[in-house]
C-alpha cells in the first residue's frame, strides 16, 4: 500500500473521529514529512506495517487529543451542566453592570431631562442582559465542542439547552417612581411567557453562527495548506 493512500486513509479517519481541523492539519503535516523521509531512505513507498495501521493511529491520536482537554475528558459535565449556570451568571453580571451604569448616567443628567430616556435605556439593558449571555454562551460552548474534539453531537446538546433556556426565560422590570422602589425579576416560566421568541431567536442565531464558523473551518480542504 503506497504513501498517498496511507495519508488519505489517516486523514479520513482523523476527520471521522471529529478532531478539529487545526489538529488534523498538524498530524498530517508530520505524518507526510515522516513518509517522505522513509521514501528517501528506502527509495520506495512506506509499508503499512512500518507506519502503523491508519485506523489504530487515528484512534490513538483522538484518545490523546481528548485526554489533553478537560472538555474532552468530561464532556457530560462541561456541555450539559456548564451552559445554563454560565448563562445565569453572565446575565447577573450584565444586569448589575448595566443598571449601575444607568445610575451613573442618571447622576449626570440635567435637572430638566425627561425620564423616558432612562426608561428606554432600562428596557434596553434588560433585553441585553437576557439576550447577550444566551448568544455568547451558545457560541462559546458550541465552538468549544468542536475545538476540544467532542464534535457536533455536544454542539447540538448545548444548542438545545440554550434555546430551551431562552424560550423559558422571562424578565419583569418595574421602573422606580421613587428612589429605591424599582424591581427587576428574572426567572423561568412554563408555558413560555409572551414574546419568548424575542429571547429564543437570538440563541438560534448564535447556534447558526457557531455552526457556520466551526464547520467552515472543518470543511475547508486541508491539502491547500
Amino acid at each position, binding site marked *: 500500500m503506497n504513501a498517498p493512500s496511507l495519508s488519505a486513509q489517516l486523514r479520513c479517519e482523523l476527520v471521522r473521529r471529529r478532531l478539529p481541523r487545526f489538529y488534523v492539519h498538524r498530524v498530517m503535516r508530520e505524518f507526510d514529512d*515522516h513518509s517522505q523521509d522513509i521514501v528517501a531512505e528506502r527509495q520506495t513507498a512506506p509499508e503499512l506495517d512500518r507506519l502503523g495501521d491508519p485506523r489504530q493511529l487515528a484512534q490513538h491520536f483522538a484518545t490523546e487529543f481528548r485526554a489533553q482537554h478537560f472538555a474532552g475528558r468530561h464532556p457530560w459535565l462541561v456541555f450539559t451542566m456548564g451552559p445554563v449556570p454560565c448563562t445565569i451568571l453572565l446575565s447577573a453580571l450584565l444586569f448589575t453592570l448595566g443598571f449601575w451604569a444607568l445610575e451613573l448616567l442618571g447622576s449626570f443628567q440635567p435637572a430638566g431631562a425627561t425620564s423616558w430616556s432612562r426608561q428606554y435605556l432600562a428596557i434596553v439593558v434588560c433585553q441585553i442582559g437576557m439576550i447577550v449571555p444566551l448568544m455568547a454562551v451558545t457560541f462559546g460552548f458550541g465552538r468549544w465542542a468542536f475545538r476540544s474534539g467532542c464534535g457536533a453531537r455536544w454542539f447540538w446538546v448545548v444548542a438545545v439547552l440554550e434555546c430551551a433556556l431562552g424560550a423559558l426565560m422571562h424578565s419583569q422590570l418595574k421602573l422606580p417612581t421613587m428612589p429605591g422602589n424599582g424591581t427587576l425579576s428574572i426567572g423561568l416560566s412554563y408555558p413560555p411567557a409572551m414574546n419568548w421568541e424575542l429571547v429564543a431567536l437570538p440563541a438560534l442565531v448564535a447556534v447558526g453562527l457557531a455552526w457556520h464558523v466551526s464547520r467552515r473551518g472543518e470543511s475547508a480542504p486541508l491539502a491547500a495548506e
Partner: protein
Amino acid sequence: MSKLRTNPDFLNGVPELVVLRLLARQPMYGYQLVQSIRLVSNGELTFGEGSIYPVLHKLEAAGWLSSKSELAGGRSRVVYRVTASGTKRLAGSSAEWQRIVAAVERILQGGSDECSITFGAVAM
C-alpha cells in the same frame, strides 16, 4: 491511601522516558527520533513509527516538550526539544525506573528462595 491502578506507572511511562531521554541529548524531529530509538536500542524497541507522534503531542501538552518549525535536512520540519520542566520530569522518571528495575531484579534473583522458606514455615 495509594490509588490502585490497572496499569502500573512503569509500564505506561516507558515511551515517555525513552523520548524524553533521547530529546534531552539533542532536539530531533519525529523520523529522526524513531531512528535514534531503533539505533540506540540495537533494534530491540520496534513499533509502528506513526505512533511516536501521539506520544510527542502528549508530552508537549504536558509542558515537558516544546516544538518549533525549523529547517532540517533541507526541509521545514517540526523539531521537538525538552523544556526545563521536562528535564525535571526526566530525572524523576529515570529514578523511578531504576527503582522498579532494581525491585524486579531482586524478585528474579532471590524471590523463589524466599517464597519456599515462607511456605515451608506455613506447612509446618
